[in-house]
């Protein structure tokens, strides 16, 4: 490993959160963003091919060194680390609506889920998974919600584009039977409603 690679390894080891490439550039005044990206790639290969218990993961727009899943059971058994408390079905459904429709107001979330959302929204805000991103121009200027970087971290995603595409889901919005319409129309049907 070259010195830049070692420096990045030390920095990622010291940080308690994913660190972006832009942040990592500031570590070495002589390094460019491309240098850092290349060194990160080298570091990833080093972990992957030299047989390490940790790996480098792209997470929430940054990079983080994490232990490999194969060792999770042993680590938990020894109580060296624990998992976060699980999310309830209501929390996951609400997060799903927000992740795909953000910025989105409470009324739309409640319309889609068919239940009141205020309690769930508060719980998700307390866990730092969603935040208020603005106010709608509509009546009463309701608050609009969006997901946070912590949401991506919790799901292990590099960014929101890594969420499944709606058309790849087994239940992509299918046209209702009485009036058959094309899949494009079905998508437009939802988009127009959003």
């Amino acid at each position: 490993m070259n010195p830049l690679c070692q420096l990045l390894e030390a920095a990622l080891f010291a940080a308690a959160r994913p660190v972006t490439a832009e942040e990592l550039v500031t570590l070495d005044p002589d390094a460019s963003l491309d240098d850092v990206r290349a060194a990160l790639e080298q570091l990833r290969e080093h972990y992957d091919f030299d047989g390490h218990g940790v790996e480098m993961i792209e997470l929430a727009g940054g990079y983080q060194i994490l232990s490999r899943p194969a060792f999770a059971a042993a680590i938990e058994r020894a109580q060296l680390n624990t998992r976060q408390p699980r999310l309830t079905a209501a929390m996951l459904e609400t997060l799903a609506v927000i992740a795909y429709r953000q910025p989105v107001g409470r009324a739309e979330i409640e319309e889609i889920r068919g239940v009141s959302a205020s309690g769930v929204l508060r719980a998700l805000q307390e866990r730092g998974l969603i935040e208020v991103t603005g106010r709608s121009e509509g009546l009463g200027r309701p608050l609009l919600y969006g997901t946070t970087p912590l949401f991506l971290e919790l799901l292990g995603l590099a960014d929101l584009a890594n969420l499944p595409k709606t058309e790849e889901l087994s239940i992509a919005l299918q046209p209702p039977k009485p009036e058959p319409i094309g899949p494009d129309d079905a998508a437009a049907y939802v988009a127009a409603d959003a």
Partner: protein
Amino acid sequence: MTSPAATPSLSNALGPVVLSAGPPIESRAGGGFVVELEAFSGPLDLLLHLLREEQLEIADIPIARIADQFLGAIHELGLNQAADYLEMASRLVRLKAQMLLPRADGEAWEDPRAELVRRLLEYQQIKEISYWMAGAVERRALRFARGYLPEPPELPPPPLTLDLLELLTAVERVVSGILHPVLHSVVARPLDVEGATRRLQALLDEQDEFSWSEALGPHPTISDVLSVLLALLELARRGRCSLTQPAAFSPLVIRRESSLPAA
């Protein structure tokens, strides 16, 4: 360790799901339902469950049948108090009525179920995404980061069930393991606030003013100090004396309230 396939919600996240996911419902001998309220995350969820049970197409819901089942289910589940479920129930009953209206042949007919079908499909999609997300969370949870301190799960402490005998046996077992046990016998040392009050009252009767050390007397024990302190505070509260400290860290001065004449 739980493998991802161990829980029903996660197994759904792994493969294509078409109306297969859902909370377990047990049939009783009487044919009724035994379900927890939390089993359904809303009226749409319950409706999807009923359609799945009957293996019905979402796109072509037999409204009359499903409306009756929905009403029966929320009654069985005790959900007929919940506003969200009642709203759906009334919507279904209205749809049922609309479907019964006669319509002329050849006349353009707008399916009154279209809006409900759209909502169900939309909700089903959200549900599928939520299963996928649950799987993603589970997979991510298998990787630990350095210096990452997740909040400890808020579990209630397990109920402690042991009687006095078990407790004493446990104590003996622990003590027997010690080579030279130093056992202290703990005795209660009640504070003598009343005695201190009497003594202070006597001092106040004799002198207009005296110091903290005079109030304590010679060689005070810890319980003496605490007794005098409590007695002083009580006397001051009753307006029998005033407590002043002329400067920071200087000794406390106890002064008889001027309105009270010396004996």
